């Protein structure tokens, strides 16, 4: 039981990071139906910038929490700039081009950002300075660290404030209007270009925070970290219903839990010996495991494919799979 509880804690923490990244995908998709393939790289740049700033400030003797906050404070505007630049230079000129064009551009942008990061921060895996002492608390046999609690709290706050922004402010109304019908929104006096740019900037800012959280949680950052994280977060967004903000949160958390439980239990469930099949390998307490934790990375893709095939609108979303 404590194992199960622990897996839930693990899954929730990883899932809430996915959720914050997924918000970036879903906001952009919701408004201009573009899969911003390069969003994962924005997250990576957030983590890298924070890494540099934190490393610079460690000798200054400031309180650790302040250092991390300054690190995040530097990462967010830089990522926002990257997000804006991306939209302005690579996506806006293609807004009316056939669908594949911006997707291919996005792949190109993603490669470029990765290799610029490589040149700045090297190829090596960077050890995020462990300045905030991590304490483990045991609740019902499950360990939860201070950092995990902080991550859960921050993610929840971010999601709540984003929901308020989108559903309770004039800017949010403008965003939703643009998402529904850009032409009409334009006729109603909304500056569509501005709204789209703001969406990219907000998404990138969230990505930066996610990057910092990821770095402090796992203690590492590397120029390639964005691609896997981005793909998983995208799967989460699709699971929740892409374009749907509460959907992205739900999808992120669910995917995190599915991955944790999957990696934790798939081996036991697919042990042919445990099914009672008499195999030579089973003698003397042996095992014959069909799928072990080695298939952990398959879950995200499997979720993605299954959702797109059987319920393209996702758990909470509108139907988008066959939108022209």
């Amino acid at each position, binding site marked *: 039981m404590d194992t199960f509880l622990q897996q839930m804690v693990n899954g929730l923490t990883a899932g809430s990071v996915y959720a914050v990244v997924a918000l970036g995908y879903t906001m952009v998709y919701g408004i201009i139906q573009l899969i911003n393939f390069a969003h994962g790289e924005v997250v990576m740049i957030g983590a890298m910038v924070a890494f540099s700033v934190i490393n610079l400030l460690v000798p200054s003797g400031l309180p650790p929490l302040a250092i991390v906050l300054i690190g995040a404070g530097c990462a967010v505007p830089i990522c926002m700039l990257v997000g804006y630049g991306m939209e302005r230079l690579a996506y806006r000129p293609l807004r009316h081009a056939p669908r594949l064009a911006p997707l291919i551009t996005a792949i*190109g942008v993603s490669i470029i950002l990765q290799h610029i990061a490589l040149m700045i921060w090297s190829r090596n895996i960077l050890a995020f300075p462990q300045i905030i002492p991590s304490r483990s608390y045991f609740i019902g046999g499950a360990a939860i660290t201070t950092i995990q609690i902080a991550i859960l709290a921050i993610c929840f706050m971010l999601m709540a404030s984003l929901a308020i922004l989108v559903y309770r402010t004039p800017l949010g109304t403008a965003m939703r209007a643009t998402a529904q019908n850009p032409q009409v929104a334009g006729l109603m006096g909304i500056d569509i270009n501005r709204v789209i740019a703001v969406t990219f900037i907000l998404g990138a800012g969230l990505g930066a925070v996610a990057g910092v959280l990821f770095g402090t949680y796992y203690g590492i950052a590397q120029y390639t970290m964005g*691609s896997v994280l981005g793909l998983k977060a995208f799967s989460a967004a699709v699971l929740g219903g892409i374009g749907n903000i509460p959907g992205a949160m739900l999808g992120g958390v669910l995917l995190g839990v599915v991955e944790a439980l999957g990696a934790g239990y798939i081996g036991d469930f697919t042990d042919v010996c445990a099914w009672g099949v008499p195999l030579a390998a089973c003698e003397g307490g042996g095992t014959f495991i069909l799928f072990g934790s080695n298939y952990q990375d398959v879950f995200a893709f499997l979720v993605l494919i299954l959702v797109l095939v059987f319920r393209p609108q996702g758990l909470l979303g509108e139907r988008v799979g066959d939108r022209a």
Partner: protein
Amino acid sequence: MRFFDTRGKPWLVWLGFALVGLALALLPFALAQAGTTWVRIMNYTILYVMLALGLNIVVGFAGLLDLGYIAFYAVGAYAYALLASPQFGLHLPFWLILPIGAAVAALFGVLLGAPTLKLRGDYLAIVTLGFGEIIRIFLNNMSRPVNITNGPQGITRIDPFSFGTFNFARPDTVLGIDVSGPIKYYYLLLLVALAIIVVNLRLQNSRIGRAWEAIREDEIAARAMGIDTRNLKLLAFAMGASFGGVAGGMFSAIQGFISPESFVLVESIMVVSMVVLGGMGNIWGVILGALLLSFVPEILRWTVTPVQEALFGRMMVEPEVIRMLLFGLALVLVMLFRPAGLLPSAVRKRELEEHVA
């Protein structure tokens, strides 16, 4: 090809063919003068040409962006490796395995295509990417509980191609000329590549080719015109995949050793870049793209390092990094300024320019 006006002068066409054919036939010997390495590099380049042509059927003709194309290459390579290596003690002849590899790859193409028929372009791209990764993860992990692919250790001692006593890996003397292993492979690869080019050319203007084009332009309209979009899309996936499978089998034999690390996502993106850069849907464009992008790393290797060492006294930016930056930049710039690629296909050009305007 509108390079020369050949109307009323069919001999000019034949002359052109003869010249190109002769150049291609003599090429490996010229390259071998500079070093057999260059013949090997040329061989890998031809493999990429095959891959790019295969992907072109899916992306260029039918308009389905496939980001996991390398999976079919992997399937073909493993099919060959498993049937012609000590892994299972099987040593079937290559002319039997290559078609098997192509068929298995085609089957996987249909497996990927069938559930994704309803998906729109960008969704399809992501799903294919996931599919490619899943295949790689499976190949990497199918060493237990029963050892099938030997997992990350890969498969060694894969048989080279051979015909009776004629072994493609060994140097030989044919008609009094010394022919090294790579040169023999070159001719075989060239032959297969030419066959693929012919198939592509014939497909382009066939009923099927035009139906694909219709699907690419407007799927709903195509269906309304009575085109069986489901089967045609599946056919595109299957055909594209089978070319990838053949290329994979040849890679396996030439390399003699394969492991899942040769079939990573970057390879898929590289093939997509070739197709996009050269010109989606235009066979000559795609070949040009494949040639350009396969030689870029070699060119960079010869230029970037010495130039940097002369300027800064040491290597600041690795050629590999510059290569990837160029790839990324090429994708972005081509889409922004020349969306139909370097050598656009006529239809594609019209279509893309209309939209951009």
